[in-house]
Structure formats: structure tokens, C-alpha cells
């Protein structure tokens, strides 16, 4: 029964995709204005197809497919500091995200433990967390650029600051929600505090902590694109900006697609890790 359900889901997905692509294709075909009649050919040579043939500014699915294929065939070219392959740009973005994210893990998990285990620290830090948490990550950008004085590190800082909060709060919640009975059993068996943290609290809180980490990686990936559009240089966000600069909607759509796929992969990786630590209650 499950096999047939999966099969039916796949068929439905493909049908939705097909309808979407067909609708897109038709919309683009009919979208442009009528070709301008009798233009002087010499003048027409100086204009783009949108002006002379009434081609829609919006590319069709075939154009996008062709461009994706072009990028996939040569993802790692390097034609100077401002023109690198899509693969290279993705690698830059991924590198920044992972660096900022792991720095955030290093801070958020231990601090979350502390907050979860000590009601005093939890209460004392609460106002700070509440104020800092809702700040849009990009609002930090000018401040980071001004104080850190390096755009690359600023981008990593922005990733760090936005991925800290979900992890911190989830860790604190997971740690404080560990069942009292388990802790009491540990106490009667005279387990030391360090051993207690690693053998009882950590496994018990792991699913919640990983949920926080999963939320964080999603946010980090959202933010990197915006941050790179702002500071430029390298990365997938810069790629979007550069193609926008050329008014190349085709490449922008390609980039959107790639960003989506990459975000999904990151999310799935953590989902897998989350399943690995989940235990039946």
C-alpha cells in the first residue's frame, strides 16, 4: 500500500510540474508585445530582441533549462575575480554559511546547556535574548562592516548572529525539559555532574537541540544570499546581483532554483541527523 502511495505521489508531483512548466511556457509566449513593424534594419541592429521583435522580458522554461545545462556543464570555471562558475560561487556561499554556523553551534550549545540547567542564568539572560533575537540579521550588516572592517568576516558574523538564537533557545528548552525522574535516578546512583550532562541530559535533549540546529541552518542559508547581494565579491548572492545587473532574468531564475535545491540539501542533512538521535518515548 505504501509503495503505491509513493508512486501515486510521484505521478502527482510530475503532473503538477508539467502543468506549471506548460503554463509558464504559454504565458511567456503570449506575454510580449507585438513586434514593432518596419524598423530600419540598421537601427534594429542596435536594439535588443525585446525592442525589435516584441520578445517578452520573461524567459520561458526552455531558455532556463538551456542556461542550467550550460552552467552544469562547466560549473567551476574561473574567468577572473568577478566571473566564476556557479559551482565556485556555491562553494563560497556554503563555506561562509558553514563557518558562521559552526561558530554559532560552538557558542549556542554550551550556553544553552547552562541556561537550561540554571534557572538563575536563564532569568538573567532572558531580557538580552528577547531583545537580540528578533533583530533582522541584515540590520547588523552596516554595524558589522563598520566595526569589523572586513566584508567577508562581516558576512560570516551575520550568519553567526542569526543562527545562534534558535539553537540557543532550543538547547535551553531541551535541557530544562529533561524528565525529573531520570535526573533523580541519576542522583540516587550518585552520577557526577559532568557525567550526568553527557550521559543523561545530552541524549535526552538531542532531538530538541537538532531541531534548533535545523531551523538555524535554514535561516543561515536565507541570510547568506541577502548578505552577499549587499557586499558582493563572491558567492551565490553575488551571482544573483551580477545577473540582475545584466537584467538577465534567466540567470536569476537559475540561481533561485539552485539556492532552493541547496537549501533543501542542507535541511535534509540535518533532518537525517535528527532522526538518528530521536528515541521512542
Amino acid at each position, binding site marked *: 500500500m505504501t509503495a503505491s502511495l509513493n508512486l501515486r505521489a510521484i505521478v502527482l508531483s510530475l503532473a503538477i510540474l508539467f502543468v506549471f512548466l506548460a503554463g509558464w511556457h504559454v504565458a511567456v509566449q503570449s506575454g510580449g508585445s507585438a513586434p*514593432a513593424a518596419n*524598423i*530600419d534594419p*540598421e*537601427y534594429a*541592429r*542596435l*536594439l*535588443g530582441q*525585446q*525592442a*525589435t521583435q516584441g520578445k517578452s*522580458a520573461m524567459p520561458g522554461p526552455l531558455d532556463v533549462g538551456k542556461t542550467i545545462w550550460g552552467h552544469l556543464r562547466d560549473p567551476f570555471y574561473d*574567468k*577572473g*575575480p*568577478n*566571473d566564476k562558475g556557479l559551482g565556485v560561487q556555491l562553494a563560497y556561499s556554503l563555506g561562509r554559511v558553514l563557518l558562521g554556523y559552526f561558530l554559532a553551534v560552538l557558542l549556542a550549545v554550551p550556553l544553552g546547556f547552562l541556561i537550561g540547567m540554571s534557572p538563575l542564568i536563564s532569568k538573567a539572560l532572558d531580557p538580552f535574548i528577547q531583545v537580540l533575537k528578533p533583530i533582522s540579521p541584515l540590520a547588523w550588516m552596516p554595524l558589522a*562592516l*563598520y566595526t569589523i*572592517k*572586513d*566584508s567577508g568576516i562581516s558576512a560570516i558574523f551575520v550568519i553567526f548572529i542569526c543562527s545562534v538564537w534558535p539553537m540557543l533557545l532550543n538547547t535551553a528548552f531541551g535541557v530544562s525539559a529533561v524528565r525529573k525522574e531520570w535526573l533523580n535516578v541519576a542522583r540516587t546512583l550518585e552520577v557526577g555532574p559532568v557525567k550526568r550532562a553527557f550521559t543523561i541530559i545530552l541524549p535526552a535533549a538531542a532531538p530538541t537541540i537538532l531541531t534548533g540546529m535545523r531551523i538555524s541552518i535554514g535561516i543561515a542559508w536565507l541570510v547568506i544570499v541577502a548578505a552577499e*547581494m*549587499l*557586499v*558582493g*565579491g563572491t558567492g551565490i548572492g*553575488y551571482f544573483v*546581483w*551580477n*545577473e*540582475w*545587473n*545584466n*537584467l538577465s532574468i534567466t540567470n536569476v531564475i537559475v540561481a533561485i532554483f539552485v539556492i532552493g535545491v541547496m537549501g533543501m540539501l542542507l535541511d535534509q542533512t540535518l533532518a537525517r541527523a535528527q532522526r538518528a538521535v530521536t528515541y521512542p518515548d
Partner: protein
Amino acid sequence: MAMFKNPFDAGRRITRGCDCGRHESQSEHERAIRADAVEASASDESRYQRVVENAIIRAIFPQDAARRLFLKTVGASTATAAISSLFPIGFATEVFAQAVPEKKDLKVGFIPITCATPIIMASPLGFYTKHGLNVEVIKTAGWAVVRDKTINKEYDAAHMLSPMPLAISMGVGSNPIPYTMPAVENINGQAITLATKHKDRRDPKSWKGFKFAVPFDYSMHNYLLRYYLAENGIDPDTDVQIRSVPPPEMVANLRADNIDGFLAPDPVNQRAVFDGVGFIHILSKEIWDGHPCCAFAASREFVTQTPNTYAALLKAIIDATAYATKDENRKEIAAAIAPANYLNQPVTVVEQVLTGTYADGLGAIKRDPKRIDFDPFPWEGFAIWILTQMKRWGQVKGEIDYKSVANQVFLETDTARLMKEVGLTPPTSGSKTIVVMGKTFDSSKPEDYIKSFAIKRT
């Protein structure tokens, strides 16, 4: 020049405040020596030798009195022989003569517009390499980012709008940081573009209620558009709306009908025509023929701390600018700077801008080879004109010492010196006449100029 005089002459003083006595501090003194050496590079070998001898003698006799006493006692020729035997003056002279750049790997930021042509083309066409530099030209997302990255020293020098170094130096819109503008990149090369639906409203007097875009508040575009509107009786602050919009967004906004037009750098204007969303109303050249637009800018720190690098970089830019001035090179340049690594635009668009044979968006082909031109000379008069407009529109308030700000930021003298070195003839300082829409600007009377306008914010 004290360091070109014979240090073995007992009658001469070579020490005052610093080693030579002509400068405030030792670092300034050393910079001047290097600058003088650069000046001499073309011709006179013996001058280098004097510079080196001076340095050695000064090192041996930090006290000028001791040097003079020594020379008086033993005689100049004996002294020369004695010191030459101890120190290889000939070798030192040779090393010094090459004026090696202190730093070879540089990063120069640019915004992808045709104004940056000299900065960009110097990379693919090899002008940086020719002057011994390894320059990476980095595309940047906006003027504010260029400003911040240059201030943060991520870029050694950058492409800026010519009012920006003035604004940064005076601390308008950022912290005051001493900035310099050793070269103008391009003159002319901007245009007013209107949405195609306005093709029958060519008279600016009928533009009340329009929404315009300019690339930045501190830009020639802003000042020229305001000037043009005001001359036509439209108050740029109350009758129309002028917003600051990054160039790539301008065409998109024009297509989306969010703005009625813009005064923008190319290739944005030509791109609007290319995509069939707008037409070129007038070229900025028709407002002020020969106006400066973008600039090659560097912090004063870069200029003083790495003078040889600065000189080499500036020479590369001046060289590239001279190459770009020639009509016959324009097509080659267009092909070199259009790819994704630089402007990322269709070659036809860039070519129309640079050759001046272009479609105007209304069905006509226009020919104006001076649509954009390149002239590196940073006339102080330009700076003073920009300052008058900053004051006219209320961006700066109070007294301005026009002459000294202009002199500090627009480095006429340096540019003239380096132009000579690469074999060009610099113009005579102060000989520039500025005529904007038929009105002559006298740079010695900036306040009177501001007072002469009917529409102003002061």
C-alpha cells in the same frame, strides 16, 4: 630641491626640522624624496645619485653642523672618496632609480558602468602589468559599499563618483577621512532617459510630478539633473521627486513604471533603449560639455604611505585614459570590458556608448563621438563647482573653504607630473572654462555663483 644639491658642499645646509629641514616630519620628508625621485625617472641619472648621496651623508651625519665641520676639515673630494669606498653609492643609485612599488598586489573596486572604463580596461588590456602592478579589479554592489570597502582598506583604490571624495573628506554622509582624487576618469557620458510613454513631453517645464532616479546623492548626476530642472523652472525638491537608485534597478523600475526617468551613467541609458523601455532625452554633454563624472580615488594614507605604488597605479590609469580617448580604440575597449567579469552587458550596448553611434530609442540613429570622453586631469575648478552645488542644495551648510578643500582632494599637481612621465602634455592649471547651460562659472567667486541662482536651498 635640496636633495639634488651637492651634499659634499660645506656651505649648504641640508638639515632643519626633518633631515633636510623642509618638511614637518621625517615620514613626510621621505615621501617627498621618493616623489622627487619618481619625477626624475624619465631623464637624469645623476639626480638619483645626488638623492642617494644625500641619504647616505644624512645617515652618517645626523647633525648638519658635524657634516659641515667634517667637509671643511677634510675637503669635499676626500670625503666623497672616503664614503664611496665604504658604501657602494653606484649600486644604491641603481636600486633606487627603479622606484619599486612598495606593494604589487592591489585591489581596485569598481561599479559596473562605462564611467569606470579606464579602471576596468587597464586590467584586460595590460596597463597595470605594464607599470609593474598586479591589480585585481573587483566589481562592487553600490557606492556606499565602495566607500566602506575603501575606508576599510579592502580596496587600495576605487572608482567613485567625483563628489564622493569631497564629501568623505569633509565628513558629509560619513566620518571625515582625508581622501584624494588624483584622476577624473571620464567626462560626459551620462544622459537623461525617459520612459517611452513620455515621448511627446520633451519640454522639461511640463515635468511637474515626475519621479526621477539618480545613482547617488553625492553624484554629478544628482547635481546636473537638479541644475537642468531648476534652469527650466522646476524645483527639484518640491515639484518632482528625486530618489537614489542603484543603476541596475533603474531600468527595471522604468519598465515597472515606478519612475518616469533618470539621469544615469551608461550603459544604463543605452540598456533602457536596448530593452525598449525608454528613450534618451538628452545627453549630459548638452547640459555641460566636458563635465567630470566618475573619479579614481584613494585615501591620503595610501598616497603618502606607498608613494611608488600610488605613482605606478596612477600612471597606469592615466595611460589607459589616454588610450581610451582615441576613437579608433573604442571598439576594442568595448569588446574588452563587456564580458561578465567586468560590465556584464551585451557588447552592442557598450559599443554604442563608447563609439557614440547610438539608437536614441525614438527610431533615430545619432552620432556623437564625444558622447563619452576620457580626460584624467582633475581640475580644481571642477571641485569648486561641485562644492557650490552641494551648498546650493543644502548638503553642506555654513562656510566652505572652497580653494583649500579642492586643493586637498583634487590632486592637479600630482596628475600633471605623472602625465608628463607617461609622455602626455598636462594642461596649464587654472585655464579651464566651465560653462553649464550657457552660464560661465568663475571658480574664484563661488559664493556669488550660488547667489545667482533663483532656486536654491540656502
